[in-house]
């Protein structure tokens, strides 16, 4: 009844895909749908970033991810994979690009190989949703706005302040430790004339180790930080 056909081994898709096949309105029926997806797929692999209608983009995204994951899993010496690449990629030089360039690029990629954004529609115009489909690692500048370099944006201001507070906290701790070490040294030198050099070194050692700790923990503000738990108390 609902027997899954597990004769072929395939990798899991790392994208959301719709459970229903879209017909992609065309005059030739299922043949035409396959041809449309062939063209879009070829264009995506060729240009690495294309703008098109949403439904077509969503449909071909699944096919692109499947093709790349099969190429990674089986390599180019596998006859079935080569036939698939030969069918879907209309320009044969792109078959070389798939196996020689894209497979090494995405071999160890734990996330999806493509990104899809919703694109603005020219107004007035058709009511079809537009989308931009691009491969990760493409040579063009990023489509998303740069939120890191401008330190005057509110989130960056807050993050910088949080950094400063954290640093201040850590320095206060170091200061307390130094004072405690100095007191210990004073006590021990008062009790017995022990080697003063060793007593002097300990507060300096503490200082050096804690400085190193703070320097490694606190990231410079220019870098992309993905550790909110450390900055926020």
């Amino acid at each position: 009844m609902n027997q899954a056909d597990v004769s072929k081994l395939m990798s899991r898709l790392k994208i959301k895909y719709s459970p229903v096949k879209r017909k992609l309105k065309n005059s030739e029926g299922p043949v035409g749908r396959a041809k449309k997806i062939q063209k879009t797929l070829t264009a995506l692999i060729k240009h690495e970033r294309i703008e098109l209608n949403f439904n077509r983009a969503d449909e071909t995204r699944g096919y692109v991810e499947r093709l790349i994951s099969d190429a990674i899993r089986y390599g180019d010496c596998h006859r079935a994979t080569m036939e698939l690449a030969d069918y879907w990629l209309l320009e044969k030089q792109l078959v070389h690009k798939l196996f020689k360039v894209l497979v090494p690029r995405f071999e160890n990629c734990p996330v999806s190989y493509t990104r899809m954004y919703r694109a603005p529609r020219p107004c007035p115009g058709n009511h079809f949703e537009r989308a931009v489909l691009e491969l990760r690692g493409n040579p063009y500048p990023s489509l998303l706005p740069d939120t890191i370099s401008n330190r005057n944006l509110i989130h960056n201001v807050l993050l910088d302040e949080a950094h400063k507070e954290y640093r201040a906290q850590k320095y206060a701790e170091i200061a307390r430790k130094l004072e405690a070490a100095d007191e210990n040294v004073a006590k021990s030198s008062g009790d017995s004339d022990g080697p003063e050099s060793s007593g002097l070194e300990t507060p300096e050692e503490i200082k050096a180790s804690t400085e190193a700790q703070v320097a490694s923990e606190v990231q410079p503000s220019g870098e992309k930080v993905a550790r909110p738990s450390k900055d926020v108390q």
Partner: protein
Amino acid sequence: MDMMNRRNHIDIPEFYVGSVLAVSSSNPHAPEKVTRFVGICIQRGGCGLRAFFIIRNVVDHQGVEMFYEMYSPVIQKIEVLRLEKRLDNELLYLRDALPEYSTFPLDMEPEYLPEGSAIPVNPIKVKLKPRPWLERWERQELKGVQDLGLPKRFYERAAAVAKPWEKYDLMAEYRESIPAEEQEEIFAEVYSQLHQLEVTRKIMKRKRTFVKPKKMG
């Protein structure tokens, strides 16, 4: 889990479409309450507890097919007499083939393969009876059949009706199957029990069965 419980009581061996099986099932109307049927497996299907297989044999010049559900409590024993694969996934064309390709002696002895060897693929090409057939075999890509010998118009029509793009439809294939990572997760759940069953099966194979001595004379 119900399937695992059943497998704890009955040993369901590994077999494929094209292997010769002997199935003993309980039958209230038989004199010994047990019916044993030997035949070649022509189809396997279903999912979970509904998993079934169909066995075909020709008895007294009459083709007979038996439909068995793998996890049915009615089945007492499944023995694999010959473990092999064929060139196709379904051998339904044996119904339209000459009877010699579906006959297997009912008292066939099990054939053993060396341990750890790959499952043999039988490259036999079956000869079909002349038309009419039960299905249009020329429209299915059958590899285990000899040249059908039909007039050209059949093949032309088959080419016109064929849908070659379905072979390359990656997403349809993906939606129907289970990806490798999920298969591993599922297998991890049942692995330990299956491994134990295999170990016990190997031990039972090695054990020499004690045959109760029958009185003579």
